[in-house]
């Protein structure tokens, strides 16, 4: 935690460097659609970027709360369903609905968090899974609302935020939107991780009792991390809803939560960007598996076991160990 000890000027330049790196990454990624002609590849990349955002949300929760969510699809699916339901019942303009689809899951997570972040880590993991599966069953069985197995189409106006809706539904432009969203999320979380709040939550994760003895309230910050993580999962769900214009109970299913968690574990959660890297590896392996995709669950299961046992800090952990510069800073 040497960042607190470093002079403010250094901290400022660190933040500036982070934003500069984010800008470079955003620009480089945004250039990709001009280099890659294949619509199929762009579709895959868009999906990967959306899932990477979800994985980053899972990773942030592990990094700052020490809690492993097996049910983050709950917030992702909740956001997508909220958009679909708004299209159906016309509660509010679509732009407001997008915002609500991020804020409501976060608010829900905060309230639920006040109860469940107090539980030991194992119970938390089991309950997040239970929450997501219950919502999945709810949308599956409550046909009048969720449309059952067939799902719901997300009805959107022809123009959104002043631009045509096709921007969000063609892979070449949507990839840029999702990529920039991903980089922005990573940069924002990077700034939060360096802030007082970020350092406090890491301290609580390390030793909650000691943090309380120093005089900090520990429940609200932990619930807030959970809410922030849910908001990011909600953002991923919103992007998914915009892009697919369709949502099924599959977006709440535990296999999606599990995949996001596996991406986070493969990439490693010590670095904010680790899970995003994990998502890239995940999709690359999935693509390379080709004919074996019938046995895809067994492959990711085996991959998860191997990474958990052999690389406890994931790929980003290995990279951080080889690059000496970050060694002192890794919390």
């Amino acid at each position, binding site marked *: 935690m040497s960042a607190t000890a470093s002079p403010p000027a250094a901290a400022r330049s660190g933040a500036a460097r982070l934003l500069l790196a984010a800008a470079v990454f955003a620009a480089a990624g945004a250039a990709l659609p001009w280099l890659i002609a294949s619509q199929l590849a762009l579709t895959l990349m868009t999906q990967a970027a959306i899932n990477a955002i979800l994985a980053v949300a899972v990773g942030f929760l592990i990094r700052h709360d020490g809690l*492993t969510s*097996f049910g983050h699809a709950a917030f992702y699916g909740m956001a997508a369903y909220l958009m679909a339901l708004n299209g159906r019942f016309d509660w509010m303009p679509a732009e407001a609905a997008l915002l609500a689809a991020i804020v409501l899951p976060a608010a829900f997570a905060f309230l*639920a968090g006040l*109860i*469940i972040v*107090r*539980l*030991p*880590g*194992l*119970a938390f*993991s*089991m*309950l997040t*899974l*239970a*929450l997501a*599966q*219950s*919502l*999945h*069953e*709810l949308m599956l*069985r*409550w*046909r*009048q*609302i969720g449309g059952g197995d067939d799902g719901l189409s997300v009805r959107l106006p022809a123009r959104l935020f002043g631009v045509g809706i096709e921007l969000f539904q063609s892979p070449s432009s949507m990839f840029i939107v999702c990529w920039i969203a991903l980089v922005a999320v990573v940069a924002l979380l990077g700034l939060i991780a360096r802030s007082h709040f970020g350092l406090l939550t890491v301290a609580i994760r390390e030793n909650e009792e000691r943090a309380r003895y120093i005089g900090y309230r520990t429940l609200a910050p932990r619930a807030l991390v959970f809410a922030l993580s849910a908001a990011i999962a909600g953002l991923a769900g919103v992007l998914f809803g915009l892009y697919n214009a369709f949502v099924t109970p599959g977006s709440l299913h*535990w296999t999606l939560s*599990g995949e996001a*968690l596996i991406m986070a*574990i493969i990439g490693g959660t010590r670095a904010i960007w680790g899970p995003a890297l994990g998502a890239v590896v995940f999709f690359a392996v999935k693509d390379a598996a080709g004919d074996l995709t019938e*046995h895809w*669950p*067994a492959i*990711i*299961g*085996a*991959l*998860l*076991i191997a990474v*958990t*046992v052999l690389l*406890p800090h994931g790929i980003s952990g290995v990279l951080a160990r080889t690059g000496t510069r970050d060694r002192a800073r890794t919390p």
Partner: protein
Amino acid sequence: MIQIINGLVYGSFLYVLAVGLVLLFGLRRVTNFAHGALFMLGAYVSHAAAAYLGFWAGMAVSVLVLAALGVVLDRFVFRPLAREEPIVTLLVTFGLLFVLEDAVRTIWGKDFISVAAPAALAGSVTIAGSPFPVYRLFVIAVAVVVAAALAIWLRATRVGLYVRASSVDPVTTGMQGVDTERLSALVVAIGTGLAGLSGTIAGPLMALSPSMGGYIIIDCFIVVVTGGFTSFTGAFVAALLIGQFHNLGLVYVPEVASVIPLLVMGVVLALRPQGLAGPGR
């Protein structure tokens, strides 16, 4: 009346499955995410064995195969990972869940398989004026026998004493000269054997499919957390409670039934964060 007995059937069934997790948590302080997959595997194994040997021998084969698998799991998963954070075991068993489901899907296919109740239990009796399948009463009887046998084993035998001591404090128990490693293998084998048993009795209650474990494990987790993790009595009460609410939910509000066990748990945890029978802080 009938609905309350149905709730009792589901609660009994949940108890037989959940108690395996409670046993494991007591000894190893970890949770087995693959428990639902083992239950599913148990259902398929007994179904396959029953084709040659009949229902009862199929049940025995399933319990023995799953218990043997439990010993293997303990030796190669739980014991080597005992020094790591509990979450590591959770992640590894989560990976195992994917592998097991895929294996079952490859061997037996992903279609539903329905299983008939054994001839001796196929009929129905009249309870409060309506017919009720004998088989469902048998499920309750199984849970009562399991609960009684476990209670006697834990309270009245030396090994049971070791298990209880180890649940409270594994390190001190080990220092007193108890071989906690062997004890753990035994306890894990009993837990997975019970998963085989519950898989067998689930056959005639619900159709077999590779995803049956994923569905049931959720209620099972809710039972374990609500009961307070280490308490057998807590798990018993929680299983009956959740079974009852689950079933009444299915009858009266089928659309939202799936969230009811979760709400029950939320209420219990809001009042008692340590669960029904968990240790006070």
